[in-house]
């Protein structure tokens, strides 16, 4: 039953995404613009940029993810599908988890693929790229899950744009600290395993708990 529901939801989301393929590129474009803005604001010199390349990339990915949170539940909230989710015979948290996974796959995965290219724009030292990709691979699902909780809390609110950012950023800070910190540690030549493991632990914890919290939040918002 749960597998069927998951496959059905994945198929639906993929079909909907395919019909608006252009929208899928918007987070990647936003991240590119953030990178450009940082590069220009810092003066464009290679030596200045390569020191901050990894943190700036982390920020670009984080901010792009933050802006795309709005699309997580809004479409379904507006046309009533979210209420059907609540009535479904499968757990609401399972549907939330599947939806969050699809959202991550369609918004964050293109960013991960684009990271080496964006890194070149910022003169990212080649040696930092593997750790950066590892930290993003662990960190972006974590951001999506935490973002899902915040998006669920504000679903149904009409003008919730800045409030979503305000609520999500305190939860995002530890992820950013360990994510960007892991690259900073690696840049100094030390072992980056510890922050990556902490990110992994956070990911595992939120894989279990975040869908439950988001489901509770959806029920509160749609009573």
């Amino acid at each position, binding site marked *: 039953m749960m597998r069927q529901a998951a496959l059905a939801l994945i198929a639906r989301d993929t079909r909907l995404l395919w019909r608006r393929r252009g929208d899928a590129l918007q987070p990647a474009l936003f991240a590119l613009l953030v990178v450009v803005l940082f590069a220009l604001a810092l003066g464009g010199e290679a030596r200045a940029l390569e020191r901050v390349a990894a943190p700036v990339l982390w920020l670009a990915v984080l901010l792009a993810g933050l802006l795309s949170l709005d699309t997580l539940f809004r479409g379904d909230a507006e046309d009533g599908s979210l209420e059907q989710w609540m009535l479904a015979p499968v757990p609401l948290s399972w549907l939330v988890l599947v939806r969050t996974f699809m959202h991550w796959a369609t918004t964050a995965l293109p960013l991960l693929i684009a990271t080496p290219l964006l890194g070149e724009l910022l003169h990212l030292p080649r040696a930092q790229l593997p750790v950066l990709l590892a930290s993003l691979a662990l960190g972006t699902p974590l951001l999506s899950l935490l973002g899902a*909780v915040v998006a669920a809390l*504000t679903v149904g609110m009409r003008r919730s744009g800045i409030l979503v950012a*305000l609520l999500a950023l*305190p939860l995002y*800070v*530890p992820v950013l600290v360990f994510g960007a910190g892991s690259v900073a540690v690696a840049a100094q030549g030390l072992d980056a395993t510890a922050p990556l493991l902490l990110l992994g632990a956070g990911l595992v914890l939120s894989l279990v708990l975040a869908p439950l919290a988001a489901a509770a939040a959806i029920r509160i918002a749609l*009573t």
Partner: protein
Amino acid sequence: MHPLVRWFHQLGSPPYFDRFAARWAPVSYVLAVLVMAYGLWAALFQVPADYQQGDSFRILYIHVPSAWMSLFVFGLMAFYAAIALVWRIKLCEILAMACAAPGAAFTLITLATGSIWGKPMWGTWWDWDPRLTTELILLFLYLGVIGLYNAIEDRRAAARAAGLLAIVGVALLPVIRYSVVWWNSLHQGQTISLFGQSHMDASMLPPLFAMIVATKLWFVGSLLTRARADNLRREAGKDWVLRQAQGTLTQVKEAAR
């Protein structure tokens, strides 16, 4: 039914809580001011100066109780929110939301007094070390709870949503508490422990205990006052509120005559 249990259940009734809060909030405030007066006097004039920091360590007597209150109030807020979500007790929703503003104020005082203390001691107003950063995130969480509560129109749904956010945020509390243990922090390590030997000299402890009690009493007064106000606002159309308001109106008219 045991009288204590009955009293506890009665507190959940809006009119009963209103009378309870109206009676005990002023008492709490007065006691708080008295204990705080002793605490501050002792902190400024009685306690000897620190051998290393001199007189500028005395801001500890505001900074540390505020810091403990900022953590305690968030935990209390999450506790009330959990009860409100599980048992749907209206008053617990009100109490949870009434915790948010005083808690945010304590966090702000902690950060401000910490900055003022840091400038002469560390040479800087701010450092991005784990203790300070996590306390700042706590402030943002408080503001987020307040913002979310005010953003939703239905008061009960708003309180439940903001309460859920508080419960999610409670995971930050142990991180703040142990940040000086887990990381190499600029902030001082653990000096006072509940179950072990405290490293603070005995001559410096009494005003600290006084300030701890005083801040708790002040918080109780503030919580009861805010909860009472929110309670009255929510129950505004009800009979008992109208009667109370008319009673007050008559009193005002009499006084004006």
